[in-house]
């Protein structure tokens, strides 16, 4: 059976009846990185240095060295990233069971709300209203919050800082608890720079998506793109982080597979 399923899958890819959507931002020095107060340790932005370019440093070949943090660009958050998940088993990118890296996705469209209010918070009633239209979120699914934030190609608009800090949409604390306890999601994904809202520090607990999601052994994806190309349900996400020993996360290529109907 499995052989037939995989053969059918391969055939569907080959014939285009399964469309592959890239949910990844390009790793570029210009892409903004998370901003912390300067006295804290900082996540490196993506940087790239040429090793050789068909020149005296290597006449026949071109290659680069790059550097970045585990949480640079489109990236995966493992439970060990947050203090609430530090003692869980298999909580780092190298020990998470690999089958968790492939799973179904529910895409909740908040793009109108986020356009109207950069501080928009996803709530339980909002998710319940979505479920009334698209059905109940199945267990072990990714919940992806579509805000069209990735369409903000100007880094200033993407970061959206003012005198009171960053203003980007995210989930409130209750909905994170709901998704973990009532819906058993595998993780939560966003388009902005964090899984939590820009003003998430002021929620209770602070940064609820990090605190509750990782405390329950669930994952995060952020800086996602092209969520507007996904159906509300039915897409399957491939999101495998680099196998970094005791890694708290990693940049990764996130792919979605969508049936063409």
């Amino acid at each position: 059976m499995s052989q037939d399923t995989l053969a059918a899958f391969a055939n569907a890819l080959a014939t285009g009846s399964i469309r592959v959507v890239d949910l990844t931002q390009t790793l570029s020095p210009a892409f903004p990185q998370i901003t912390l107060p300067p006295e804290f340790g900082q996540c490196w932005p993506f940087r790239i240095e040429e090793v050789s370019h068909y020149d005296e440093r290597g006449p026949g070949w071109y290659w680069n060295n790059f550097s970045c943090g585990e949480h640079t660009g489109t990236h995966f958050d493992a439970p060990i990233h947050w203090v609430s998940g530090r003692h869980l088993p298999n909580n780092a990118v190298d020990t998470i069971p690999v089958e968790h890296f492939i799973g179904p996705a529910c895409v909740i469209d908040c793009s109108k709300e986020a356009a109207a209010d950069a501080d928009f918070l996803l709530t339980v009633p909002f998710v319940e209203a979505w479920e009334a239209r698209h059905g109940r979120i199945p267990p072990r699914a990714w919940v992806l919050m579509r805000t069209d934030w990735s369409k903000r190609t100007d880094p200033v608009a993407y970061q959206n800082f003012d005198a009171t800090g960053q203003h980007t949409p995210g989930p409130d604390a209750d909905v994170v608890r709901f998704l973990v306890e009532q819906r058993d999601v595998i993780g939560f994904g966003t388009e902005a720079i964090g899984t939590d809202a820009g003003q998430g520090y002021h929620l209770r607990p602070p940064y609820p998506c990090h605190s509750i999601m990782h405390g329950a052994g669930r994952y995060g994806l952020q800086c996602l793109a092209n969520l507007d190309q996904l159906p509300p349900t039915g897409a399957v996400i491939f999101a495998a982080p680099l196998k970094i020993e005791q890694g708290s996360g990693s940049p990764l290529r996130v792919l979605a597979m969508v049936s063409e109907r």
Partner: protein
Amino acid sequence: MSLPRPPKKNPILRTRAPTTPPGGRSRVALGLTTAAALGRLELQVCRDCGTVQYPPREACHACLSERLRWTAQDGAGELIADTVLTHSNDLYFRERLPWRLGMVRLDAGPSVVAHVHGDVGDAPARVRVGARLDRAGQAVLVAFPEQETKDMADDRQLREMTCDPQYRKVLVTDGKTPTGQAVVRALVDAGADLVWVGHAEPWKQYAGFDAIAGLHAVTPVPLDLTDSRAVSSLAAQIGGKVDIVVNTAEHHRTFGIGDRRGLDAARAEMDINYFGLLRLAQDFGPALKARAADGDTGACAWVNVLSVYALANFPAHGTFSASKAAAYSLAQCLRAEMRASGVRVVNVFPGPVDDEWNQLVPPPKLAPSALASAIVKALRDGVEDVFPGEVAQDWLARWRDDPKALERELSL
């Protein structure tokens, strides 16, 4: 006579290759350069018989004592003869003829040959002799009018030895810091034609940047010295027009070894303070060198804002000191590589600047505006090493006297 605005360059004309005046000096004669690099005139004075002598020698020409000390001079004297050179076989001077020279008898004793400023009257005339660095980076003597004259800095011969920002195009690498902003304002006030102001991480808001960006001569440009591609890209756009680079970009944290675990703060300091300078020099250096003889306002200077902590480690800011020492060393390399073109590398060694990261350093602290004024003055005077403010002057004096003693004093 004030310098008229130079005409725009015809872009299809050849840019002439830079030449420099004769640069050979004996080791003892370099004492004159050591002082001139700081903007001082010093001559050898015999500690036994008191004779002031010139040219520099190994021993006193009056009593043969070897106990000679370089001592500051006021340079007062009389121009006893002057002439205008109309022919020279030296490649540098033959492109700059006519050239005025003279003989000055210093009140302190010796007679010296000096370049003569255009505002000095015919001999005999009272003058004040100063030391300047020529395009070869070596000390030469210049006879100035006894009293300041209007637009004295605009003298054609003198401008060969200075790097006045007037009518020049300047890149200030970071305009988001108080120092960067003060430097931009000082350059605009000094008559710079155009000031490109770098700004990294555009999403971060810094007080004062918008006001700087709105000045008429200012053009903000994205520039992050940690990003090699960004530096190369900017050099590709404007590198062929920049006459002066002022590298104000700096990362400063206040840690030694034991009070901060890990490398992140130290690495960020090295990445901007040291590697940032290297990236900048690799990408902007070649074009600057090539344009060193590009008319009256050709490329002329490269300013590094270092720190007096580059001389000796200030343990409370230990990793910052180390990054600045690395930058200082690299700046010496840059100076050596720029030497043949005549582009001057100016190293500025401020003491603690009155900014965010020196919050806990007690006064006296150097105001950013004072640092900026010192930079513009250094360009106008053509000096090479600048120690602005009392802390920097104090450290310099102690370091020159006994570097080991300074190390011990700083470790208490």
